[in-house]
């Protein structure tokens, strides 16, 4: 694992994309953002294992595109969100093609209806809600991450919340 002292300077440099060397940049980005991106990916997928894998994928992609990633942190987050959406697509396919797939393990703890309802949402709705209520992003930032218009984000959030309400406020 890499080590080093986190500094405001590094953080600002990553945010502003001012580190030219890809390896140095990705190292700082890792130190700054890896854990938070895994948490984000976990909220988007519900799977710890997948979250790790998808975030690592995203770091590799950002490294390869470092020269074009003018805002590496935002770029990384978008990569994570896109990877998670692709993961959902693949998973849907696999589930569809495996009629006798083993059911996923049931959590032994108290059922969390809100969490389950979030997991049942369409991936785009789920992503919009997580980016808004966990990452506290603006509609414009969410739109950029999801590749849609801000108006669509509003609609996704509105409909996503409406679905959650059905479950937690029946």
């Amino acid at each position: 694992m890499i080590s080093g002292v986190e500094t405001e300077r590094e953080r600002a440099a990553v945010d502003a994309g001012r580190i030219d060397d890809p390896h140095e940049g990705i190292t700082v980005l890792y130190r700054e953002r890896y854990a938070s991106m895994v948490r984000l990916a976990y909220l988007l997928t519900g799977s710890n294992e997948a979250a790790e894998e998808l975030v690592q994928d995203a770091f590799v992609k950002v490294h390869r595109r470092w020269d074009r990633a003018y805002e590496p942190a935002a770029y990384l987050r978008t990569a994570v969100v896109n990877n998670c959406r692709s993961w959902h697509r693949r998973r849907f396919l696999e589930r569809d093609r495996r009629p006798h797939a083993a059911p996923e393990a049931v959590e032994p703890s108290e059922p969390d209806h809100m969490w389950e309802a979030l997991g049942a949402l369409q991936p785009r709705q789920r992503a919009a809600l997580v980016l808004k209520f966990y990452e506290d992003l603006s509609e414009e930032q969410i739109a950029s991450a999801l590749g849609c218009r801000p108006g669509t984000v509003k609609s996704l959030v509105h409909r996503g919340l409406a679905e959650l309400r059905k479950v937690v406020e029946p």
Partner: protein
Amino acid sequence: MNIEDRLREMLGRRADDATPSPYAWSRIEERLERPRWRNPWVVAGALAPTAALVVAVVMVAGRGGDGSEDVAAGPDPTTATSAVDGGVEVPGDDALGVFPAVLRSDLEALQREVDAGHDAWMLDPEQVAAAYLRERALGGATISIEGGSGGLSAAPAEGELLAVSVVAVYSHGEASGTLLLQRLTADNESIWFVSTVGSDEVEFANLAYDSHGGLDVTLRMVDAGGVEVVADAPYTDWSRTWEGDFAAGSEPSFSADASGDPPPAVVLVRVQYEGPDGSRSIVEDLVLAGSSQGSESVGAEEPADEPCRSDLEVRDASADEALRAWFAEVYETTDTIHDQAGQPQEFVITGFTVTGDVLRTDTAAEVCVRTTWATDPEQGSGDAVGYTDDVVSLERRGDEWAVAGVRRSTLKNLGEWMTAEVAFLDPSGECGESDAEFKLLPAAVVVEGEDPLSAAVHTLLTGWTQVGDEPFRHTLPLHTRLVGLDVDEQGVAHVELSAPADDGGGSCLMNARKEQVRRTVLAADPSVADVVVTVDGRPPEESFQP
């Protein structure tokens, strides 16, 4: 605690369940060391079918080596995608396919998975083809696989291809193409993979869309987390070559968007991965329906005499005015149409509802209109007996739109209907802030299984400009649709309208629109205590904002 706060609390709590691995950095470093297949070329183009059956291929127009785009005169129906030159390096890990993986090493890994008893579907070429189509943009379409050379059960030797013809039927047309599938090794236990999609003979048979001139298309390519705008251009008039930087294992994805709703019916994107010496080329044609609402009603059989659809919306205020003027002109006029028994009869027009898509170019448009008819001209709108689904054609003549003609279906039974009062603005009214500014006018409402309240709002959203001799103003954009209407336990009616409802206009006009809906609902159902009107899923405070 409201739902938003509960969600925030839950997300914060759940995020703590994630446990980042302490070894993650070494894994990332290890992957950064691996060779990769760099700088494939991406060729993208959008095609507009221009006739009922068109042979359509992508033409390479030019290349901006710095990522810029060159605009072509338009797709050439006789020219295939050309080879792209130079500047590409391919390391040892060669690229073989399009789906379910690109690199040989990845395909071999999938083979090992199958050998271990997983994902047996990859042994079936039909399932692989279907999975590809579902995974890409054709998920919403009805797909039929029409066999291939040698039949789907054939087991070609390594390198031999199996062609699978695919027909994808959308609500607004169809597209056909060819998938080429290949086995990794020459035995029956080998997985199949899609090696090429599309061909120079890709055919489009898009029956609904004659042309799309005037629509702007934005094609985005998403790669490695960034959203790159590939091109903005009129739909009929562009193709592009764009240099991407895609690791072969990282799958580019596309979306099509248009300045008008909905996005155009079919956009073809050709992705070409190219080796350094041009020796290896993978072509992948993606047929995208964008987020077209049309794809949601895919596969529905459309009766021959019902050309109208209700799944598309395109707004154009200037053409709407022409339509409204025509409605006013022909309202309560008689016409000879065929009744339910097929006999020609004289009927009078008693109402209109814009029901379907508007297929619009710079110079021509078609609007689907449900026209209600009565047998007795003296009875006016109070004696509706049937309806026709008509296609009204509009043409641009100079700066003005004009109705050029109408195609009518045969008369159908109106079914259940009622007379409802619909709130229109008095010609002297402006912002709809007082009762005096409104007129409640009777209109024949086709109920057709929906509740009378919804039917009344539907009728409000028609294109009428006149009822009898009563002049009035209608402020809602013509293609506004009723998305949802519920009355809660407190008697509050929640009306959701589609996006055009608050297009354009200032606060005065917005208020007038909202009031038209509110007053119509209150008139239709006196038990309703209040009305909340929203637009396009947005909360009330964000709807009808000037």
